[in-house]
């Protein structure tokens, strides 16, 4: 028998059976389905300090591996193993507003300083809480490890409670509760491989794409990075000057503002985001693609990129869950 920890409690499990079977036997309720390492329903997070057997992570995305995710049905109990169910993996902590900066197109950059230890990858998202009942998720546009701050892009939603508060009422020095991080839209390349990165999104879906691009560039990514920001009209784009400057500073970074209803004098690529993005897909088999923003567009981009040859494990997107009514947003 071997002692392991799961969600903070200790359990004695037999070495001959999977962690999933062992925990189920002890009456622990946890989700599972195939028990053969394919459906990924029983995924849990392991302490990365313990040695993780690569077999426990077979078939997982690189981003899931980087977060220490393992499949409980493939996992064998080893002494000192500590696991957490994914719903409990995130923590809630206070953060202080240190800067508010309008970026244009109704988007406000909100810079937060977490007041407790907090680590996240650029491009992951956090959920902010206003009172007990209003929680909204925003992606991290900067590299939190650099200055300890989180840069979030908050688009004003008509009648939106959180976005209204952030735009109109929040002041530097105010505190807010945040939970996270979550999501698998981030850059991971431990083997330092060379591959093209395609980033495409709409609206404030730019924030995670920017986070991925900044992190990739900071880590000296080799290979083309193309960021395509799509909008209905040119005035819906934001952060253009900064992205243009980033492209000027890095030869392997390309910025493509893409507008559906472009005016003749607008200095943008005219067309629908999915078509323009697919046009930049030079080597689909090698490409890692990140898609963020409006859910219908993200679904379309994922499907088209996959059909064009991008491997499913190399397509990253976060489920942007729209709030049921605009008034509650």
């Amino acid at each position, binding site marked *: 028998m071997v002692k392991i920890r799961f969600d903070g409690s200790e359990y004695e499990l037999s070495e001959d059976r999977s962690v999933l079977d062992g925990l189920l036997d002890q009456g622990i309720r946890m989700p599972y*389905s*195939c*028990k*053969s*390492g*394919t*459906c*990924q*329903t029983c995924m849990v997070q392991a302490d990365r300090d313990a040695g993780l057997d690569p077999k426990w992570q*077979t*078939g997982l995305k690189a981003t899931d591996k980087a977060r220490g995710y393992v499949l409980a049905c493939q996992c064998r109990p080893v002494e000192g193993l500590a696991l957490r169910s994914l719903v409990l993996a995130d923590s809630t902590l206070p953060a202080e507003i240190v800067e508010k900066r309008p970026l244009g197109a109704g988007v406000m950059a909100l810079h937060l300083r977490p007041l407790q230890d907090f680590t996240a990858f650029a491009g992951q998202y956090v959920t902010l809480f206003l009172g007990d009942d209003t929680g909204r998720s925003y992606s991290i546009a900067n590299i939190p490890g650099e200055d300890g701050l989180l840069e979030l892009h908050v688009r004003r939603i008509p009648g939106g409670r959180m976005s209204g508060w952030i735009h109109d009422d929040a002041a530097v020095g105010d505190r807010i509760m945040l939970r996270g991080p979550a999501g698998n839209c981030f850059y991971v390349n431990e083997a330092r491989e060379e591959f093209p990165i395609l980033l495409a999104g709409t609206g404030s879906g730019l924030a995670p794409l920017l986070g991925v691009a900044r992190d990739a560039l900071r880590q000296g990514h080799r290979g083309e990075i193309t960021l395509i920001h799509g909008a209905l009209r040119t005035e819906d784009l934001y952060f253009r000057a900064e992205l243009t400057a980033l492209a000027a500073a890095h030869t392997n970074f390309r910025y493509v503002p893409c507008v559906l209803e472009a005016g003749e004098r607008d200095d943008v690529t005219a067309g629908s985001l999915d078509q323009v993005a697919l046009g930049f897909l030079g080597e689909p088999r090698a490409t890692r693609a990140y898609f963020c923003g409006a859910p219908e567009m993200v*679904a379309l981009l*994922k*499907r088209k990129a*996959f*059909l064009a*040859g991008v*491997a*499913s494990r190399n*397509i990253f997107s976060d*489920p942007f869950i729209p709030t049921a009514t605009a008034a509650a947003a």
Partner: protein
Amino acid sequence: MSLYERLGGEAAIDTAVDLFYRRVLADDRVNHFFDGVDMDAQIAKQKGFLTMVFGGPNNYTGASMRDGHKDLVRRGLNDEHVDIIITHLGDTLRELGAAEADIGEVAAIAESARNDVLNR
């Protein structure tokens, strides 16, 4: 050696799932059944399906097959669509260089699920 081992086990499923699902999504006769379905969730389900028809370890039951396809049957899923899926399965295996005898065995396992899939 079992069919599952001959086909290359789990590693083969990882490769096969993209090839197979790409064929299915590109086929206008069946791809409307996948409209509005999240691709990541679907890929995970297809891996479960491939594990089953490759003769690998799986927990699939007739009841789960029936439940999983009930809505699709209501939307018109019929024998013709099952035939198309089994053809794509065979073509995927051929692309991966599987032996014809093994492809036949996989098709037979898929065939055995036909009545459950179609809820008859």
